[in-house]
């Protein structure tokens, strides 16, 4: 009974948390970054370096991948998760990740890893926030169930 009460109280706190802040980072910003970065980096590479080396190190695909990586990791930033689930929620969220990895719950792991891709393609960014809340609550349940 007490556990159910705790789950309810913490879930309400996690769900009612507002004011999350996810930097604007998506396919458009990644595409916009390509031209100026290629220009800046190829200018510094200068005349003395073989063109092939420059093309390998500073190309559209590489820069796009780097920008996409930045966007992906923005959604896994602990402070973003804390801002969407509260600090306590972050701790439950971390416990959730620990449990799905140790417990080899691969379908949840796959969802967890693929979710940050959504905001990059401008697909329902808000889902990430609410899924984080859900993960935090599941983590809380894992924690309380474990302590039985």
């Amino acid at each position: 009974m007490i556990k159910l009460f705790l789950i309810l109280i913490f879930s309400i706190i996690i769900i009612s948390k507002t004011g999350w802040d996810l930097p604007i980072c998506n396919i458009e910003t990644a595409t916009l970054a390509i031209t100026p970065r290629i220009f800046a980096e190829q200018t510094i590479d200068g005349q003395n370096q073989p063109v092939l080396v420059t093309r390998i190190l500073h190309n559209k695909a590489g820069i796009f991948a780097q920008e996409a990586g930045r966007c992906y990791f923005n959604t896994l930033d602990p402070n973003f998760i804390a801002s969407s689930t509260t600090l306590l929620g972050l701790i439950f969220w971390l416990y959730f990740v620990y449990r799905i990895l140790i417990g080899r719950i691969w379908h949840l792991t796959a969802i967890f890893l693929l979710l940050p891709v959504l905001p990059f393609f401008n697909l329902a960014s808000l889902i990430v926030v609410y899924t984080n809340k859900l993960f935090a609550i599941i983590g809380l349940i894992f924690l309380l169930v474990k302590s039985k």
Partner: protein
Amino acid sequence: MKKYILFLIILLASFLRLYKLGSVPPSLYWDEASLGYNAYSILTTGHDEHGRFLPLTNFAAFGDYKPPGYIYATVPSIAVFGLNEFAIRFPSALFGILTVLLSYFLAKKLFENAVVALLTSFFLAISPWHLQFSRGAFEANLGLFFSTLGIYLFLKFAKDNPRWIFPSALSFVAAIYTFTGQRLFVPFILLLLVIQFRKQLLTHMRIFMFTTVTAAILFWPLFVFATKTIEGQLRFNEVTIFKDLEPINESIRYRGKDNYSWWADLIHNRRFFYAYQYLIHYFDAANPGFLFIRGDVNPRLSIQEVGELYLIDLPLILAGIYFLFSKKQKFRILIIGWLLVAPIGPATARETPHALRMISILPTFQLISAYGFFQFYKFVKFKKFFIVLVFFLLILNFLFYLHMYYLHWPKNYSDQWQYGYKQAVEAIKPFYNDLDYVLVTKSQGRPYIYFLLYLKYDPKNFWPTAQIVKDKFFFLDVNGFDKFRFADNPNEIPITGKVLYVTSPGLLPPDAGKITTIKRLDNLPVFDIGEVAR
């Protein structure tokens, strides 16, 4: 075979840390210059730049009261190589190489596996985080060596011979005397070690007590300085979040909304606001953008194009953490605990995540990723393909890092390293004897130390002529010495005679004849130098 591989790794680590050490980073930033000149001053006079005889707990320097470890370590280097960039950075590079070697022995003690140990040292040898700090005169890097040595010797105490606890304690004391950040790392890592090896400590209580008392005696002078003097607390008070007033204001605002009731005082207590701020800063340490994409926001502490770790490290670290727990590795609590306690101290500061203050987290990431790699290798079916794939991606990451480090970063961020001072000193040298005054702008920060350093100015001549003032933040500022006068705007100093001006671009007095313009590596002007006779 393993010995040869280790030798090759150390050779690689040495090359990466010593190649072009004097010219990349492009110039000495002011702390490096200060460390170098203080070491030179100790070498030639036995006193620091302000004339204090062999300081034990701190060097006043800019009023930041630097710990003494790095300065004393630089004395022999300057004696051998002379007063130059290479000599000032050499101790950091040397102890960086030794940390790579140490990481091998540490990993071997923890995992009892030579392959994991070799991988750990290899990962550290090519780590962007460790390379960045091994190639600059960073006290933090020397501090890292001592704290890692302390941990390794503690392991030797627990596993080999109880006598090792004594040198372990000495290493921890040396770490504290070398880098301020270690003062908030060593107590926590010691606590972890004590918890991990409590049985061995209880068995060898006498030597443990003797070591504790000796270490306490050695630490006492620094403890008194750090806790009982304004100067000792200055730096901490300057950077800590606990001196911010915003959490108090917020607490008052919330309590006001609840009419200052007793329960509002309890719920909206300012300590909760500070605790919240602290935790936000603590969790910043795990910011994936910082770790894997961009690194530290300060271009002096990271090249901005690669994370503090390589992207390929991410799956290896995750696998490492997974296998540490799933295999119930004997020292998993110590390794993960080390990873978790390292950000405790840095989280008290405003700027987080901070690669420099968090450096004591190394080489935990390398230990974990090496273990992850090894266990993954045992786990996968296509072993050769796995090795080729991981090393291909790692080498790709590594080559990109090297290219950016040597070619792009110095040009993009030479201003962050106060580039231009050395060239300015060289430009005024031929005129110096014929001049009455040299007026220098303070726009690039702390010019006096560069003129002392690059002129190899005798400290004995500096002490009687130095015009030192303490600013409102308690920093020490030098307004002049000998023929030099330093000011935000040198044109405002009324002076007659034969004068040489070193000003910001375009700010030479109208009657001055321009001698030269000093440019940064990105070709933007940094100083105009001109001469006038009035």
